[in-house]
């Protein structure tokens, strides 16, 4: 009773941290979110994606061929919420909250200790790394949920009923169809799990083989997508093979950088959407407990140690085989083992727990302060803030102008998502030269970014993003 109350409060905290002001911070939908939203809307309306392909297993989108599961999930949510911005973000936030719950059960299955599992769940609930990706429509976050669920179901099936293994395999399969990093992580990790628990699997070898076969047949329609040129396009474009220099040294560097203290504890991923940049991916106070946890897991080697180390190493591989590393999004799967390590370390020295509480509270408040006050001001541009405002302004002013020329830095998906694409007055141009009017006597509008200037025409309005910088200037001519 008391235990379930504690878990309930941890989930409540997780939900608060992930849902509080979710539409305001981060300030706007960035372009992948908009593409996801529009494709889901299109699927709901016509059964086709924006390129007119019906029920695709790969969404072409911006020619980056997005994996399908997140888009279909959003489509499901849009049945109830309508095509709103909120419908794009809610699945990721809910996946974040569920991951916390699943992690509790997963660690409980592994250790049979309430303290370790509850603290692991709490650590994930307040983890900066996880909150950052739960608060926007990142596919990787849903993939993480499926991976955690898959591992939990795997362990549960060995203890309770082997039939649950089916759920585990389905979950692992869905994760690979949700984000690219799971395609590298899941097959290897599954083999490690199989080897690790071979003594139990051996007893049910027939059932396991049958379940594997059924899952395989279930996934047959997806398989061509994994091996097609389009499916691998993203991997080949971002591959480490395109990086200059020695391949092995590059790999070593890209891999080790994921474990750099500077990256993990002090400045985080420097891409604007991936962290608040001023703090790391993990809290600094986690470091001593992580070290204690590592020491303990090496000293008392168990199945937990193998799982944690395999998870840490495999989680970093998707970031290591690409050009940009460290990359918090591609290495998102490794957010979990760090939290388990912290929990193992904390439980090892229970005397320190009361001492840690004020530090934890302070650092969480500092993170919330940075996230809700500083972050939307400083990095609004990374979230394409201002595009939606521009479009809603154009919608209201459209009737006063004969032609509207928009700079092509505003992606077409935004026009489609915010329902302006069908307007016949609208033209996307590079605007390097002034467009020639069709109706010389009448008023026209030009929407250009602030770094483009012209002496001949006058600015009538500036669209500003959250921090106050101009996104677009509107010229009348």
């Amino acid at each position, binding site marked *: 009773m008391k235990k379930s109350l504690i878990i309930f409060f941890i989930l409540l905290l997780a939900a608060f941290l992930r849902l509080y002001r979710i539409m305001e911070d981060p300030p706007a939908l960035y372009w992948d979110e908009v593409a996801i939203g529009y494709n889901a809307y299109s699927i709901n309306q016509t059964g086709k994606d924006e390129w007119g392909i019906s029920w695709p297993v790969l969404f072409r989108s911006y020619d980056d061929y997005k994996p399908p599961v997140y888009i279909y999930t959003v489509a499901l949510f849009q049945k109830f919420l309508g095509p709103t911005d909120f419908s794009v973000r809610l699945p990721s936030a809910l996946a974040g909250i569920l991951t916390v719950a699943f992690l509790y059960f997963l660690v409980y299955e592994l250790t049979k200790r309430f303290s370790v599992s509850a603290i692991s769940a709490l650590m994930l609930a307040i983890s900066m790394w996880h909150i950052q990706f739960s608060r926007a429509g990142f596919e990787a976050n849903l993939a993480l949920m499926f991976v955690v669920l898959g591992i939990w179901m795997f362990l549960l099936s060995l203890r309770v009923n082997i039939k649950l293994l089916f759920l585990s395999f389905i979950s692992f399969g869905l994760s690979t169809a949700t984000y690219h990093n799971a395609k590298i992580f899941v097959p290897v990790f599954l083999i490690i799990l199989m080897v690790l628990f071979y003594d139990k699997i051996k007893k049910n070898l027939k059932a396991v083989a049958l379940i594997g076969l059924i899952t395989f047949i279930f996934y047959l329609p997806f398989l061509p997508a994994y091996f097609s040129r389009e499916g691998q396009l993203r991997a080949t474009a971002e591959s480490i093979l395109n990086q200059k220099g020695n391949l092995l040294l590059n790999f*070593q*560097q890209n891999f*080790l*950088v994921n*474990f*750099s*203290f*500077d990256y993990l*504890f*002090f400045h985080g991923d420097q891409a604007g959407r991936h962290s608040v940049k*001023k703090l790391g991916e993990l809290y*600094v106070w986690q*470091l001593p407990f992580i070290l204690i946890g590592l*020491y303990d897991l*090496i*000293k008392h080697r168990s199945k937990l140690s193998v799982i944690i180390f395999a998870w840490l190493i495999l989680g970093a591989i998707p970031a290591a085989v690409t050009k940009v590393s460290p990359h918090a999004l591609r290495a998102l799967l490794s957010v979990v083992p760090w939290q388990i390590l912290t929990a193992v370390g904390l439980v090892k020295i229970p005397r320190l727990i009361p001492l840690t509480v004020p530090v934890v509270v302070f650092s969480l*408040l*500092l993170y919330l*302060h*940075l996230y809700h*006050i*500083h972050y939307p*001001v*400083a990095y609004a541009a990374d979230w394409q803030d201002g595009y939606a405002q521009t479009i809603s302004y154009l919608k209201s002013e459209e009737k006063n102008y004969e032609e509207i020329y928009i700079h092509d830095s505003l992606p077409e998906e935004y026009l489609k998502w915010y329902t302006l694409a069908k307007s016949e007055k609208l033209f996307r141009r590079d*605007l*390097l*030269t*002034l467009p020639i009017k069709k109706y010389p006597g009448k008023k026209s509008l*030009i929407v*250009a970014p602030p*770094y*483009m*200037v*012209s002496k001949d025409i006058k600015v009538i309005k500036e669209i500003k993003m959250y921090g106050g910088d101009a996104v677009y200037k509107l010229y009348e001519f």
Partner: protein
Amino acid sequence: MAVMPSINYMNFEFTCTASRIIMDLPHLIWEAESADPQGQIFITRMFHNKVGFLLGNYLRCYLSYFSPEYIASFLTIFGAILFFIGTYLLILKKSKLISVLLLFPIPALLEFFPFTVRGLILLGGYVIIIIAGLYYLYAGRKPKN
């Protein structure tokens, strides 16, 4: 319309020297306080203050000498692996060399010694840990019958 040349933003690349650690403070404080809402002095002072930034900078630099990718660039990947094995064994055997492990990066932080001496002390620290680790590995091995 003409495209204006893009502005070259200042590059605040951070390097770990004592002067840099201290020089960085005004910039950090300015950056933090200028974004804070007006009139909430208490919150601003609580979250952004000199002590916090200074401690953070020193800790960041001190820990960077234990960071896997730094050691791998200093001693190659094999050196890094040996260093972490050594660290583990020193703690496992509760060796007195743990003090060396904790203290050896400090001269590198303080700029008290000239550049080359600091590098040598750093290298010496790594080598001591590695050799101690190798010794424990050898000593812990059971003799064959």
